[in-house]
């Protein structure tokens, strides 16, 4: 399937979801005014990916900042990934955060409490 590659902007993250290379990464800042429109291609891509996912995939979140509306969207992304995992193809999460960003680490921990996926926390 086609990779989803979106470059970062001042208020939206870089997205690199590529089944062929096995790189699945969301990084940067997310504070778009219209989160639903911005993230619509991400949800379409995940629905496509769910049809024949790799046996194992690691989704990397390297967020520097996200606003509250984006936090809701990130939860929705994780819940969709959880569905793929529950259907039998392993999905795990790598949650990367700045070493002095306690709030970002906590945000990841909270997602890991809600979503039943393995989280690996990586300090950068």
């Amino acid at each position, binding site marked *: 399937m086609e990779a989803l590659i979106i470059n970062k902007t001042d*208020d939206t993250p870089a997205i690199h979801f590529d089944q062929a290379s096995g790189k699945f990464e969301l990084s940067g800042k997310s*504070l778009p005014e219209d989160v*639903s429109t911005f993230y619509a291609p991400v949800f379409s891509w995940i629905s496509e990916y769910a049809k024949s996912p790799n046996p194992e995939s690691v989704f990397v979140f390297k967020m520097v900042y996200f*606003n*509250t*509306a984006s*936090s*809701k969207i990130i939860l929705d992304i994780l819940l969709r990934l959880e569905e793929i995992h529950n259907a039998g193809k392993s999905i795990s999460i790598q949650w990367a955060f700045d070493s002095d*960003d306690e*709030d970002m680490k906590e945000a990841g921990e909270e997602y890991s409490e809600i979503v039943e996926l393995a989280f690996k926390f990586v300090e950068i």
Partner: protein
Amino acid sequence: MGTQLNSTSEGKSEYMKFVMNFHKMMVEKRLTLVYEGEVTQDITKAFTSMTEKNLDKIEEDGRIKKKVYHVMVECLQNIAKHADDDTDTASDKLSDGLSKSGIFVVGSDDDEYFITSGNSILNENIPALKDLINNVNSLDKDGLKELYKFKMKENAISDKGGAGLGFIDIVRKTGNSLEYYFEPIDAKSSFFILKSRISRKIVEE
């Protein structure tokens, strides 16, 4: 001719004096940003990046800088999404880009940063807004965390692009309750002022 010129420059000097006093007041109150006008996504981006640069210049701690950034984004996006502004220049449609009139002030003293926003609101919407803020203010750290998680799961993204999490997030990030004030404008609406405080001291947990 001479007198005419004189009176013009007199009129100007009164205005100049006002600007001078405004400047003095800003310096005295340590206000680094004062804005009155349309709040849009471009304004949000411009103000946050400007404030980030200012805080870099004074070598503010990265953690505090992030908190200031967080609160600024939530407050500015709150105005753009939730102000009840029915003037001709306002836009309430995401597809056109939101635009609402408001006031936004960033200031500080030795101990704290203050972020204050103001916008008009319909009187009928005040009780719900008060309840929302009072509830958030009444919760402790764990209560706020649980409420955030609960609402993040339950709330859908609104037609304004919000998740209904802004106030909880501000209180969680700052550790300080929200201060608010309503000033009646007319029978229909009031002006809503919201102040958030961010400590400049690092609390090690």
